[in-house]
């Protein structure tokens, strides 16, 4: 059944009772086969994407996935199995696969979970306008108009406009008695323009460069983005960059715009504070962290101005939810308080190793994969004042925003980021535009050089995909970010 109407959210599994029976059957089978713990996630995803790109006709796609993932703990060994759901009993097969994967491990195995009380509940993303109920013509007119207008400009050689929407129904049952149903809705948009002149190519993006931006909201978020109104500025800046000088190497004081601050949080705070990385579980692929678990409460990570909080209860944030993918209730957790590490992005298993409650950061890509520690909604706490006030405080330096390239080492220590735009700031006011800006540094030194964070009125939420794990799976996370003022940063490091 392909169902795009907005009426019943139950597209394949026809009722909550049916979903619960499927998930519980898988859990019960695992227990019958000897598991001491089991959980089952039944996930239905409906995702729509429409892209208009230069050089090709529009591409409009609707993707639906429904499946069951089962995780078991059996004789001290983990096992995970997933199956797409069809008319046959693939839920049972997923449970059997999980059990057999656990049984195949060479012992002795010593994984365990401290028992926790059941947590049950229902959650639905609040939204005003169901993005799947918006007419096709409204979506096509929007992206086609953006593309047409962008390409009508001299020097614009390439453009992409896109909109996206996703609805997920995530059901969770565990052998501890939890039963949870979450309906998560998100909507996003993307606009990118490339301008070229004499071999020089520059790109400008809105609202963000990496996959645009996606909010836990309905179509009202697209309206708020005001893509058509922003397009002329995006085009003007892409063209102006063609004639801008290159930002020269040196040290400078910087204000990073909210999009760039979000990336900085993602790469050098979020990943560095994932407790599975800290324990070496990701060493073979994504890497480790420069932080050690025993440094919690002691390690100075940044300046007094830096407080970073994981709060998956934040409204309209893509990384928010009511329960993570091992069924733990979302709650705010201070990760960095006035520059000192206070907690980590953790799972039950990793948190119990440090004698802490989990911060509910165990997340999986749909039903298919075993959950890992991912960012949730991780954001910097705002300070005071608007952007102009922060630039005034900066005095002389540069204002950089929106990532163009990004790289960080496997310990999340040595980073180099490029930005789409850089404005010189002279006596607190934006002046000349520069192209090919880049900056780099070492994580704790960088955050230790943060002098101020702009106020709550400047805070923006950026939702983005993130890759982790082997086999790689996607996490969908978000970051709350306000502009930050950083002193003495190396700039022009990419040549």
């Amino acid at each position: 059944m392909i169902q795009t109407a907005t009426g019943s959210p139950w597209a394949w599994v026809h009722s909550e009772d049916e979903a619960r029976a499927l998930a519980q059957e898988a859990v019960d089978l695992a227990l019958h086969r000897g598991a001491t713990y089991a959980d089952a996630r039944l996930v239905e995803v409906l995702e729509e994407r429409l892209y208009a790109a230069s050089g090709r006709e529009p591409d409009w796609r609707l993707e639906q996935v429904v499946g069951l993932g089962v995780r078991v703990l059996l004789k001290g060994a983990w096992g995970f199995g997933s199956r797409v759901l069809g008319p046959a009993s693939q839920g049972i097969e997923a449970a059997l696969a999980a059990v057999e994967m656990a049984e195949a491990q060479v012992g002795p195995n010593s994984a365990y979970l401290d028992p926790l009380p059941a947590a049950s509940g229902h959650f639905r993303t609040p939204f005003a306008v169901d993005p799947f109920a918006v007419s096709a013509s409204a979506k096509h007119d929007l992206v086609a108009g953006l593309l047409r207008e962008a390409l009508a400009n001299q020097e614009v050689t390439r453009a992409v406009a896109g909109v996206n929407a996703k609805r997920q129904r995530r059901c969770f049952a565990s052998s501890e008695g939890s039963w949870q149903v979450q309906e998560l809705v998100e909507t996003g948009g993307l606009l990118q323009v490339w301008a070229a002149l004499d071999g020089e190519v520059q790109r400008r993006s809105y609202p963000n460069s990496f996959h645009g931006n996606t909010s836990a909201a309905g179509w009202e978020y697209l309206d708020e983005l005001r893509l058509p109104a922003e397009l002329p500025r995006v085009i003007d800046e892409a063209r102006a960059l063609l004639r801008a000088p290159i930002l020269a190497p040196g040290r400078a004081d910087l204000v990073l715009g909210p999009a760039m601050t979000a990336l900085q949080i993602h790469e050098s705070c979020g990943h560095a504070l994932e407790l599975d990385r800290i324990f070496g579980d990701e060493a073979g692929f994504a890497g480790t962290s420069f932080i050690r678990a025993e440094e919690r409460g002691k390690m100075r990570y940044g300046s007094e101005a830096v407080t970073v909080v994981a709060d998956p209860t934040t409204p309209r944030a893509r990384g928010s939810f009511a329960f993570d993918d091992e069924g733990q209730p979302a709650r705010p957790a201070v990760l960095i308080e006035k520059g000192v590490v206070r907690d980590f992005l953790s799972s039950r298993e990793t948190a119990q190793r440090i004698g802490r409650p989990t911060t509910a950061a165990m997340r999986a890509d749909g039903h298919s994969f075993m959950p890992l520690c991912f960012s949730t909604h991780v954001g910097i706490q705002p300070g005071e004042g608007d952007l102009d006030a922060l630039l005034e405080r900066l005095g002389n330096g540069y204002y950089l925003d929106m990532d163009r390239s990004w790289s960080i080492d496997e310990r999340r220590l040595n980073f180099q980021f490029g930005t789409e735009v850089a404005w010189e700031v002279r006596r607190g006011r934006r002046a000349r535009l520069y192209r090919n800006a880049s900056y780099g540094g070492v994580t704790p030194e960088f955050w230790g050089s943060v002098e101020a964070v702009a106020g709550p009125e400047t805070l923006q939420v950026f939702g983005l995909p993130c890759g982790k794990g082997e086999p790689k799976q996607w996490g969908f996370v978000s970051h709350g970010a306000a502009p930050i003022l950083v002193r003495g940063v190396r700039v022009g490091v990419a040549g």
Partner: protein
Amino acid sequence: MIGSKPRGGDELTGRLEEALREAGEDGAQAFVTIRQGEHTRFAGSRVHQPQAVEEVQLMVSVDRGGGAARVATSRLEDARAAGREALRRAAALPPGRSQAPNAAGAVTGTFNHWHEDTAAWDAGTRSRLAAVAMTLAEAAGATAHGMLSRVLVEMATARSAGSAYVSATEASATLLVRQGGGSAYRGDLARSVDQIAVEELVRSALAEAAAARDPEPLPPGTYDVVLGPLAVGDMLTFFGGMGFTGEAVAAGAGAVARRQGEEVASALITVADDAISLGVGLPIPFDIEGMPKVHVPMLDRGRVRGAVFDLATARAAGTSTTGHAHIAREEAPCPTPANLILRAGSSTTAELIQGVDDGLYISRFHYTRMVDPEASTFTGVTRDAAFRIRRGSLEGPVASARFTEEVLGILGRTDGVGSHLVSQPIMNVWNGVASAPSLRVRGFRLGFR
């Protein structure tokens, strides 16, 4: 076998044909991809992520010249419904400016890249190998981290002209050994697990990790280097971004559009996208549009040659598809190099090292990203084993360091090519693999610029 059995060509092409009947055969196309993966992932002293993962996507596309309306489902039983919905959505697309893509020459038939040795590489066997790696590492005062995987792959496509089906296996092994502040990494993948010498990977990673202990910081500067096959393969993954795609050609950007025929690399360098040369990477005969994969020369003895195309970009460029249709997650469809090969030379890695008087051996890069596609500039850090080379021999280990370099600059300053190809997956590309040998490169810059 834990994974479910392959569905088989009859079932899959049958489902696709059902979908096409509903979609109307004019401009309609459908594919299904299935990956049944078993992954034994380990870290330290335990298998911490043993997974049996099934991924299924059946997608129906209707393109009558106004763009593509695609509907995908994980439920093969919903093939007809997907076809109907794709047709309904195609009718809602605005009138197109161009003709429907020309799919003449679509592949039909059944193809087999299935290897029983891989299919039989079960969770128990992989678990025992992981245990051996972890035990040997522990005995050496090290820790082992990695993954041993077996994936059963099926892909089918259908158009009005007929259908095609391929079944394949995929085996891969990765291993990182950490010891004394240093580390060493090994990885390989192939259709047949017999082509992956897992025990040798373990042995050599342990030996290299022992040599890589206590790495010294490396002063920024310019060095003659020998890049290991995994570092070179990482560079190949930027060829798409550097302009070797139909999308870049249409935009007049990148190497193929702007430097066609120009000598941009050493005459020792030949790079192609080739999914049909059996035995290298992960061969596969056709893409998700059902079009044949063809050999695409990108750099021929250092000169810029061709780009990869899908039907849409080929239509825009007035050329033929090369069988490189790709739909990445959360992105617009774009033709994508997926089976990159840098042609092997005749030197062993040891011989390449002997040709360096004062320099470095770099086994691997990490977190590389394109900085400037036109200039082919990319940045990243060295990761895992890296050593000083003095007078043609490896000496002490050196620590991770940042670099910002030009891919074509590196290939232009290459004066030696290794004889042994190693394959690695290309992230976010379905059946994506890059296969490369070692290279000796003069004047590689390390440190912030």
